[in-house]
């Protein structure tokens, strides 16, 4: 690409550097432009507006008659575990040393009312649904939930205790509408 006018020198507005400048700026504009044009395509893959329109749901807790029972409802296409905990379970969950947990969180931070545990039933490792909701299912080494996919153990408060999962089962935003109804979302 040696040009005849490059003899005029490279400093300042000389031939090569001026051409280089034009080449680089043109390329830069092209790259930025192509990147901007690509954005609508990339963003189109994000959740659509109707998917985002987050319907909150109200859950009637009255089917759960006594402590120790649990139910699973669907919210945003995800299972939500609702468990009416027994006194012993609450006591157990509150007696652990929070600082030594993999994801330190006290039981109080995870519930609105101590007897009702509400959380999203999706293992924080790779998204399987942990076992332990139904009677007879394994509850893991910490009397809570056990994920069969890769062996994560959750305790009575849905906190990760052992296994590859990095975090506790998340608690969705919810509030008690009355004593036997909660609104999730």
């Amino acid at each position, binding site marked *: 690409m040696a040009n005849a006018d490059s003899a005029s020198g490279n400093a300042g507005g000389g031939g090569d550097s001026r051409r280089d400048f034009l080449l680089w700026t043109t390329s830069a504009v092209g790259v930025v432009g192509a990147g901007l044009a690509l954005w609508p395509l*990339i963003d189109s*893959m*994000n*959740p*659509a507006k109707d*998917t985002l329109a987050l319907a909150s749901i109200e859950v009637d807790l009255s089917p759960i008659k006594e402590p120790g029972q649990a139910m*699973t409802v*669907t919210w*945003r*296409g*995800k*299972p939500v575990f609702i468990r009416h905990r027994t006194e012993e379970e609450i006591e157990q969950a509150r007696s652990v040393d929070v600082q030594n947990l993999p994801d330190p969180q006290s039981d109080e931070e995870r519930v609105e009312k101590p007897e009702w545990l509400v959380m999203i039933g999706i293992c924080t*490792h*790779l*998204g*399987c*649904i942990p076992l332990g909701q139904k009677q007879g299912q394994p509850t893991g080494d910490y009397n809570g939930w056990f994920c*069969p*996919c*890769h*062996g994560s153990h959750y305790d009575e408060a849905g906190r990760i205790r052992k*296994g*590859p*999962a*990095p975090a506790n089962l998340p608690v969705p935003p919810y509030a008690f509408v009355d004593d036997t109804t909660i609104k999730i979302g």
Partner: protein
Amino acid sequence: MSAAHQKQWNNRFVQWVDDRLPVFTILQNDAAEYPTPKNLNYWWNFGSLAGIVLVIMILTGIFLAMYYTPHASMAFERTERIMRDVNYGWLIRYIHMNGATMFFITVYLHLFRGLWYGSYKQPRELLWIIGVIIILAMMATAFMGYVLPWGQMSYWGAKVITMLFSAVPLVGDSIVQWLWGGFNVANPTLNRFFSLHYLLPFVIVALVLVHIVALHTVKSNNPTGVEPQKKEDTIPFHPYYTIKDLWGLGLFLIFFAFFVFFAPNYFGEAINYKPADTMSTPAHIVPEWYFLPFYAILRAIPNKLGGVVAMFLSILILIVIPWLDRSKVRSCKYRPVWKWFVVLFVIDCFILGWVGANPAEAPYTTIGQIGTAYYFGFFIILMPLVGKLEKPKPLPESISAAVDKK
């Protein structure tokens, strides 16, 4: 593939076309006269076999797509309809299903051939790297194809694999939502997987063409690992290797047909004939056999991000082996120490596969960790070290010299 030395053709029509589009010259140079080492053994059959399986997959896939519907509420039934009501639908689907297995068998054997005979070494580095990219594209394609029937294992496989990306610090969850197009694996996910599953095979075809251009630039390696020096070291591709490839193809198709007709679900999971249930994870999630070793590596590391990184690295590391291997000798035939480590590596891959098929508990986790340690140690420590320390056997002067000795 240059039109540099254009041939004069006897047929005037052929000549007329060739002057305007050198297809006949290219075929003559790259498919007929193409000089090929005369000592290639049957390990050199698997490249062309893999190419033929790719064609079979695209062909059967096009016809399956004529009846399939990528909608979460219809995909499972439509797939079953192909199996029961569509004329020869069962055959086309079983060929496609088992074709995925055949594709990975041929490609893994092809990869092993490259590893054993040092085909990745200078000057074939790029040829090798393009091959690794093809395998990555194949894995993505196979994974998304497995999701399409929308059975239990389809659904939960999709969930677990997409959730791998949630391990990325800070933006992980956003990436996963972007991949899903929602808050869970659902209809938008199925739609896009179908779209990409149809696209990627054609990307693979393009990559295969690039692979062949690179191959025909640097030419084939051979069992001695010694480059051809004189004319007697090579023979024309046609008819010698066209007929050898065809003979291998005949044997391979018998093997393929056996599974299609007599054990079509041998490589599958029975639970995938149960429709996807978003509320219940199967007790035991396993990927298809060709992902098992990598799945074992994922589970061997008791940290989410670490496991995901190790799994991706286990394939990406293949890209840098042309520079990790310090030995000047290509073929394991002349590497008395290294070849045993390669044998052990193959055994290790089978062990990891076996671990991947079993639940994540003792003793499998420990075995998986030892297997993972050897997998990476093989490339990172042994490859440079053995290459430096090993005393290779004397190389033959030429291919002809090696062949005549026998």
